[in-house]
């Protein structure tokens, strides 16, 4: 007798929980050959709104954690990814239609990238900050601080897990919290990453993952007054100029779309893109 398979429903990851979409909608995720793989929640603008609320309330704790602690928490994610390797390989193979070796190479690269960014957590300030020479008996220090809530449109083509990791890790390093719209056609590894995050030490709300249509959700995130920055790395197929215009209404920082094999390549500049430079003056002690 044939056993009846139990397909998994992939839900959203908002505020450390896995809710269904507020709208009740789901969409079918298909394999590369067009076979049914799973149902995924089709997030709505209200899910994005809830995610922003969660991200905002998590910001204080995450931005306020010490850089060393943030680095440890991010490194821990890499450890957990390693343990779930088989599941990710399976999802990537079926969703993207690549062979096991390519899927394995992708998850290797994703883990290495987490580790690379985790290492920056307690180092980027030394590189980007400065003790400025001023003419007077003052210390003058410039220090990068997190921008705040960052909305990200994850890369939509190619390597789904690697693209997602490359987009969210640099924003997290500096202490930002993130609302990310996952790869629409291959959202499975994104939600599985959410399951990894939920069992890691990342506080709930620091990363929020919404699956669904970026074309539908992105305009609401771009115009949302409580979002501080917008990473359009995966928005190349959307009307991203319009998104930039509405982001400008509330003075968001914006990163443009990228495409090709080296989209969202690891770089210090991606970390610094979502930081604000704070300069403080302090009198020199009279000894």
């Amino acid at each position, binding site marked *: 007798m044939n056993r009846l398979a139990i397909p998994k429903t992939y839900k959203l990851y908002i505020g450390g929980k896995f809710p269904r979409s507020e709208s009740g909608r789901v969409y079918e995720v298909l394999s590369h050959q067009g076979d049914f793989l799973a149902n995924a929640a089709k997030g709505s603008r209200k899910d994005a*709104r809830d995610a*922003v609320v969660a991200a*905002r309330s998590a910001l204080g704790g995450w931005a306020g954690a010490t850089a060393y602690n943030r680095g440890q928490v991010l490194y821990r994610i890499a450890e957990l990814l390693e343990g779930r390797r088989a599941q990710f390989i399976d999802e990537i193979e079926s969703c993207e239609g690549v062979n096991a070796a390519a899927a394995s190479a992708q998850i290797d690269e994703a883990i290495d990238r987490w580790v690379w960014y985790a290492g920056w957590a307690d180092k980027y300030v030394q590189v980007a900050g400065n003790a400025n020479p001023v003419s007077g008996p003052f210390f003058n220090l410039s220090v990068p601080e997190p921008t705040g809530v960052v909305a990200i449109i994850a890369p939509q083509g190619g390597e789904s897990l690697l693209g997602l990791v490359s987009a969210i890790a640099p924003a997290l390093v500096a202490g930002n919290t993130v609302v990310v719209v996952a790869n629409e056609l291959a959202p499975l590894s994104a939600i599985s990453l959410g399951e990894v995050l939920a069992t890691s030490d990342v506080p709930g709300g620091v990363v929020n993952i919404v699956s669904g249509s970026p074309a539908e959700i992105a305009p*609401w995130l771009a*115009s*949302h*007054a*409580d*979002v501080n920055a917008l990473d359009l790395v995966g928005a190349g197929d959307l009307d991203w100029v319009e998104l930039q215009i*509405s982001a400008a*209404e509330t003075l968001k920082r914006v990163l443009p779309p990228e495409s090709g094999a080296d989209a969202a390549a690891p770089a210090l500049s991606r970390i610094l893109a979502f930081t604000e430079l704070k300069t403080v003056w302090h009198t020199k002690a009279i000894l």
Partner: protein
Amino acid sequence: MTHSPLATYQPEQRALALIGGEATDANLRRYLHGIPGIDAVGLEARAADLGTRSIKTSSKRWAIDTIIGLIDLTTLEGADTPGKVRSLVAKALVPDPSDPGTPRVAAVCVYGDMVGTAVTALGSAHAAGGTEGINVAAVATAFPSGRASLAIKLADVRDSVAAGADEIDMVIDRGAFLAGRFGQVYEEIVAVKDACRRADGSMAHLKVILETGELNTYDNVRRASWLAILAGGDFIKTSTGKVAPAATLPVTLSMLEVVRDWHRLTGVRIGVKPAGGIRTSKDAIKYLVTVAETVGEEWLTPHLFRFGASSLLNDVLLQRQKMTTGHYSGPDYVTID
């Protein structure tokens, strides 16, 4: 609808006629314990059902503006300063500076010693007995615990009324109520009502806080509501906001039912004020639905229904901005209280 002969009685006579004698503990107990009990499961199911109505677009717009007009903007902290009260009044006058069309709130609610500051800050916008403008409500009678002698409670009330308070929010003595000394609670409300009389003979509005979070059962809430109305309260109010749980929808629904029954019995309209714990527009809209479905839409005026809240206004303003601009707003666009 015809009312019973009770409608023609003076308020005091009416209470005595209903109780069937003087307001003694025994008579009041007989009367209050004779009121049918509440089906708690049914009440909660009804409240939950009323909370599922979907209010959208133009109805939501109307609801949001109505909510703002029903808010008693409140600050009741030990750390209240004259400056804090002045900024509260400024917010009551112009809730959203980015949209001058935003309606004003119904009243500001402060401690008794801050009434003078609030009245001065309101200036010509102070209602002072008129129907236009913003009222000043003062909590009194040893708020929030109510643990003081009657003389001190009455002095507290007279002080606030003399300072220009239009509304007095008194707390009942929950200890006496729970111990069954209904006569004492009754007499206290009557005495406080009398202390609400101004020098010119007009009366400050009296809101009676039942502190439902300390009454334990819906039956007690219903009895306390009847008791407060019999004794002459103009408004019954759920909570001080200092005790959890504060206002809940089932509790408010049960109080609205008492108000509805009282109106049928006597033709007199009593106000209801849920206070504490109402923080989102979504919650507040549930209350509007409950009021409209229980006592009727004519209760949705500041004279008969209020929200006691401090953080609710900001959430309502965010919703209003969302409806006006078409995009989500954020806490940076409303004041920090």
